[in-house]
């Protein structure tokens, strides 16, 4: 019996809306169709109306997990356009945050993989330890999600000796825990039974379908923008590109955990080499006409921004390609001939970030507002009024 099951746009395995239409024969998948477009905000069009500085905060909101990736990719492109040379210390802090972000993203993914496989204990433990790196990021930048530490020409906050000591302590804990999870992820029989041999993507297919990031590296294709196009500080630190040649979900787990260990190494080197000096230089308001292609290795793979300026204080065109979009064709290939039970694992194994992949269209018009009972403007006005009239709470505590 063959029938079509819809995975998404709302489904417990998906944290963000996307639609996977699966044609299944019993438990075996025979056909896959991916439909996008549930999460469009029109950022590329919007960016053409914002000036260079405002756009940093706009692109940061492309994604909640790799927010720093997009901001950094954009900022390093615009700095090239403006012919700015940020001070060394600023760059070191910027890429320290990027590596910490990679750590938090990979730990998040590891937990999600456990949850998708029904291994909730693993999920809980990994996410507990993820709090360590989240706290470090909050310590450095003041925020847990949108760090907002980048600015044109450097970073906005400096590190002091106490913070450096705390980061070092945190890295020691994280390294120990990651090695433990590496052991669990590669040895726990029921977990390995679920992920080994699942979602096979041969190297030839990975190349042909332009897979990126850990997905490509787990198929034995050692591509890493940090290594092949070393931007900023990456030619001054020593690290290896993690690969696996098992081409399955197990390989993707292994690659990500290895990358975690490499990231700890990079963070420690950055802290060791952190030079003294300023953290930022002043940026001009306008950029000369020109174009730049900025590439950045986000936790999910290659992130590429194409920025074109026309001599004003606004970009002529900002094109964003997030890594998840590049992995969709490969996902379709991986899902084919799999079991229904493998769908969440295979799909999660590309570490999909749907809000990253869908950023480019304009605001969807109000055909969809069927459930709304009040206008947005009205709600906003009411919220402001309520906020102004609310009594000032001192020492407010949450009721237990």
């Amino acid at each position, binding site marked *: 019996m063959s*029938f079509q*099951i*819809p995975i998404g746009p709302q*489904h*417990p*395995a998906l944290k963000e809306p996307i639609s996977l239409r699966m044609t299944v024969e*019993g*438990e075996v998948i025979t056909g896959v169709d991916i439909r996008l477009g549930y999460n469009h905000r029109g950022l590329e069009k919007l960016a053409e109306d914002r000036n260079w500085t405002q756009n940093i905060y706009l692109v940061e909101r492309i994604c909640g997990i790799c927010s720093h990736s997009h901001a950094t990719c954009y900022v390093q492109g615009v700095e090239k356009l403006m012919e700015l040379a940020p001070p060394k210390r600023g760059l070191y802090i910027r890429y320290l945050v990027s590596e910490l972000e990679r750590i938090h993203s990979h730990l998040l993914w590891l937990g999600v993989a*456990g*949850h*998708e*496989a*029904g*291994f*909730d*204990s*693993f999920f*809980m*433990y990994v996410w*507990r330890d993820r709090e360590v790196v989240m706290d470090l990021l909050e310590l450095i930048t003041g925020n847990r999600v949108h760090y907002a530490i980048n600015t044109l020409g450097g970073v906005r906050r400096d590190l002091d000796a106490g913070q450096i000591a705390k980061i070092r302590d945190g890295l020691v804990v994280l390294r120990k825990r990651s090695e433990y999870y590496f052991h669990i992820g590669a040895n*726990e029989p*029921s*977990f390995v*039974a*679920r992920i080994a041999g699942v979602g096979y993507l041969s190297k030839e297919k990975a190349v042909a379908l332009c897979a990126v990031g850990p997905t490509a590296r787990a198929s034995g294709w050692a591509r890493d923008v940090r290594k092949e196009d070393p931007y900023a500080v990456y030619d001054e630190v020593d690290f290896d590109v993690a690969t696996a040649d098992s081409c399955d979900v197990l390989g993707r787990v292994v690659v990500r955990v290895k990358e975690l260990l490499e990231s700890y190494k990079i963070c420690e080197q950055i802290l060791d080499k952190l030079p003294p000096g300023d953290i930022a230089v002043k940026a001009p308001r306008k950029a000369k006409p020109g174009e730049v292609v900025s590439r950045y290795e986000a936790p999910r793979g290659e992130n590429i921004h194409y920025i074109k300026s026309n001599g004003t204080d606004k970009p002529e065109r900002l094109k964003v390609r997030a890594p998840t979009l590049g992995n969709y064709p490969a996902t379709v290939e991986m899902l084919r001939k799999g*079991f*229904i*039970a*493998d*769908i*969440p694992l295979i799909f999660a194994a590309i570490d999909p970030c749907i809000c990253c992949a869908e950023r480019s269209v304009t605001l969807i018009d109000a055909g969809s507002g069927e459930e709304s009972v009040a206008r947005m403007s009205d709600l906003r006005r009411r919220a402001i009024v309520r906020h102004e009239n609310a009594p000032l709470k001192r020492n407010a505590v949450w009721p*237990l």
Partner: protein
Amino acid sequence: MAVVRTLLYLVVYPGLLFLFLYSTFCEWFDRKVYARFQNRMGPTHTGRFGLLQPIADFVKLLSKEDVVPEAADKRLFAVLPIIGLAVVSTAGLLLPVWNFDLANPGWTSFSGDIIVMLYLLSLPTLILFLAAWSSTNLFSTIGGARVLTMLFGYEVPLFLAVLSPAILANSWRLAEIAAFYQRKPLLLLPNLLAFIIALIAVQAKLERTPFDIPHAETEIVGGTFTEYSGKKLALFRLTFDIELVVSSGLLAAVFLGGFPGGAVVGFIHFVVKTLFVIFLLCLLRALTSRIRVDQVISFAWKYLAPLAVLQLLAIILLKGFLP
């Protein structure tokens, strides 16, 4: 007078009310232990140590909107949760904790009650399948197919494993089996392998990780329960809680020496031993990840069933050597 006693027996103790309270307590225990294994707090808020949380959840579900799908067979859809609850509660009456009088078999303790109990415990699985099929949802249908597929895997090993101590005790009556092992506690040891097999099979019967395949939320949403909501879902969840109590009580009666010592001491035995079994089930749940349905079948037939047969063989040989 007899009518009143029977009514009390059915409704209060050990009938519906007691089973309801004790199963919610067991659910709390299960949730708390599971949470502590995962470095979480578990229920803390409702009642002391969150003891009332399962009851609060039950009441809340009762008050929720009850939606029946257009295409579903409405009568079947509505009646299945009640039948399920009735079946497992009936199975609960057969436990030898409230009918320990060996000399005086009654309508809840008779020769062959272990077989009746095993069959009563199989029925909820079929009811689950019917519920899934009658709700006509795609995810439910897949869940229902998975329920049945899994049934073929774990049912045979469970029966073989539970019957081997009965063969050694030379009785088909739960109370007598328990009494046999109370006299000769050392003979519990040869049944250890059967106990482990039965634990795994019960885990599969209760559809808990690693066998929560029919309602694996990341794959097929709610699976069998996708279309159930409100009161019906509450009854189904209660059914599974009571099934947890009854099956752990069965394992305790057969493998852990029953509940000696009359009404009060026996009851304490019952609580301690069922909680011990639930603890083991919980450990299994915390330590594994969900496997695929084909892996369940191959695991059950490659390892569980042959081991159960081996156990049976060993027991029969042992019986030959015993005086």
